[in-house]
């Protein structure tokens, strides 16, 4: 069914815009589409494990309602379109675990603002997707419920932490999904799975109802089959929210209007520090070919310097673990989640947290607690925040000269399951090109730009200044439309 020879595309191959058009034209109903997605999940998710749970009954009921609403003239942009939601996002009445055993059985009494906005636009929730526990990881292997597999090669990771969402979209289980990106967790799995992942600027999308990991870094973003779908979903989930004082009080631009295909005269910066020795040669070659392609579309290629690049990962790991150690203090076995009795209240906390958190979460809480503890605060945490300023200033200078900064999304294609599990430092190095955007509050997108000799997808990253989503989407769309990478699908 999913191979290239069949001239009639399966219904599950549609993205969001295509689904909207098909529903509006009466080519298929929301019940058809939702049932096709559920069937596809039934067929392939045993092997992939992209979903932690689905809500088939509620989804089909909502689809039937959407079809009736459409008959009555309802034309909301996502009406009747089923979507997958990363399990760190709260969904009212649907179990939400953040991939952690400590939250097993937790049923939120409200939905994240981003989820609420999707539903208000007519979307249907298919289910919750797998993630590294509390989004801490780059491979989805740190899930408390077992790893997700890459649809292009079941022996490989889908990336992470939004690996479930990326695998679900790449495997045509859902037209699109929401992920979250703290150090690359939307962009890197999108790259590993051959699809599009958009990390909005910090403050663009409300974090209300997102189970917090690194509060100064976290952003919710769409994971989609096309650049146009990413623009469409961001327009819907973006905007100021009284429930999140860190949302930017600015109007959401008409992002779809930026998708003209026209990039003549745009200045694309190529940071020499991002093309260091050790990038997988096929990744570098594919990205260099993409640069030539973008130049041939009329953009100007400008060599730039980001001298503090090497410091981004150490800064990121000090900042994010410090914030995580504070954020995860709330899991105490009193108000929700796992609870293990102890002799005293503090013993209750120790036992509950010791039993409920997995190894990576414990490691990050420990590292963050250490960096914030008496005697080490100035040397690690404060110092990291100062160097963060230097990293941000690198980008401020760069964006005074160029519109977009281009690089690989990840130094390699998808690695093998188990390859880095016992080596936490090797695992974090996969985030080398993505963490800077979170530290500096930038927006970024990963789009497919080729395949390696094993047939694994390669991702191209475009970074833009804070609130510069129109620039990266414009560039991404022009490149996407001039290539055919998006048409290649995994065989499952």
């Amino acid at each position: 069914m999913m191979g290239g020879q069949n001239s009639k595309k399966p219904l599950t191959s549609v993205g969001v815009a295509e689904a909207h058009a098909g529903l509006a034209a009466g080519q298929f109903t929301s019940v058809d589409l939702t049932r096709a997605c559920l069937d596809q999940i039934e067929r392939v998710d045993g092997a992939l494990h992209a979903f932690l749970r689905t809500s088939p009954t509620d989804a089909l009921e909502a689809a039937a309602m959407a079809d009736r609403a459409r008959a009555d003239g309802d034309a909301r942009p996502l009406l009747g379109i089923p979507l997958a939601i990363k399990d760190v996002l709260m969904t009212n009445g649907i179990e939400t675990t953040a991939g952690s055993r400590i939250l097993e059985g937790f049923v939120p009494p409200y939905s994240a603002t981003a989820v609420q906005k999707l539903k208000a636009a007519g979307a249907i929730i298919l289910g919750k997707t797998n993630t590294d526990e509390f989004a801490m990881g780059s491979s989805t292997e740190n899930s408390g419920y077992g790893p997700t597999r890459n649809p292009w090669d079941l022996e490989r990771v889908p990336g992470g932490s939004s690996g479930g969402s990326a695998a679900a979209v790449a495997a045509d289980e859902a037209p699109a999904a929401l992920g979250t990106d703290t150090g690359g967790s939307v962009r890197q799995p999108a790259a590993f799975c051959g699809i599009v992942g958009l990390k909005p600027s910090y403050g663009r999308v409300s974090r209300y109802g997102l189970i917090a990991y690194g509060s100064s870094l976290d952003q919710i973003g769409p994971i989609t089959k096309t650049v146009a779908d990413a623009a469409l979903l961001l327009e819907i989930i973006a905007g100021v929210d009284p429930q999140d004082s860190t949302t930017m009080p600015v109007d959401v631009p008409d992002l779809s209007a930026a998708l003209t295909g026209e990039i003549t005269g745009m200045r694309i910066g190529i940071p020499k520090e991002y093309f260091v020795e050790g990038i997988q040669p096929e990744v570098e070659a594919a990205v260099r070919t993409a640069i030539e392609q973008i130049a041939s579309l009329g953009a100007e290629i400008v060599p730039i310097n980001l001298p503090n690049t090497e410091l981004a990962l150490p800064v990121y790991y000090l900042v994010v673990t410090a914030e995580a150690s504070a954020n995860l203090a709330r899991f105490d076995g009193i108000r929700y989640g796992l609870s293990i009795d102890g002799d005293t209240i503090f013993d209750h906390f120790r036992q509950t947290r010791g039993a409920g958190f997995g190894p990576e979460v414990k490691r990050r809480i420990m590292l963050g607690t250490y960096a914030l503890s008496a005697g080490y605060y100035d040397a690690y945490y404060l110092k990291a925040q100062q160097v963060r300023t230097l990293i941000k200033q690198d980008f401020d200078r760069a964006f005074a000269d160029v519109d977009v900064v281009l690089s690989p999304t990840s130094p390699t294609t998808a690695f093998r399951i188990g390859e880095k599990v016992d080596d936490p430092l090797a695992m974090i190095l996969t985030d080398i090109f993505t963490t800077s955007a979170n530290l500096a509050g930038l927006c970024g997108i990963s789009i497919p730009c080729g395949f390696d000799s094993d047939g694994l997808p390669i991702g191209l990253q475009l970074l833009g200044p804070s609130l510069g989503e129109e620039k990266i989407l414009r560039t991404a769309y022009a490149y996407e439309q001039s290539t055919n990478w998006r048409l290649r699908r995994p065989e499952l």
Partner: protein
Amino acid sequence: MGQDHGAFLWTKLSSLSHEEDDVKLTREEVQHVAELAKLQLSDAELDEFAGQLGQILTYAQQVQSVDTSAVPPTPRVLPLTNVLADDESHECLSNSQAVNNAPDADDGYFRVIAVFDDPGA
């Protein structure tokens, strides 16, 4: 190709790191941090974390080589300060919704072990 994944920066890293600068944590230090974080760790975890945290901190130490004497910290990237909300009531969760997920709720309250008898409190 797979065996090369992630190896590239190790070469760079090892050239940066001199053994005398390596951060080494004792089991007692790890136990102290675990107590601050209220995490019950097994003996095996204490030993494992002592090694791994030392390794990651050795890597993170790079930040200390940068002169930041004139650089202000960036705890957040937004150009916003003092975001205020109007002082008015809004709809909120009901009492039963608020305690609905509690492992041990009683009459609309969270039940906990008495705090003041705890010598560790």
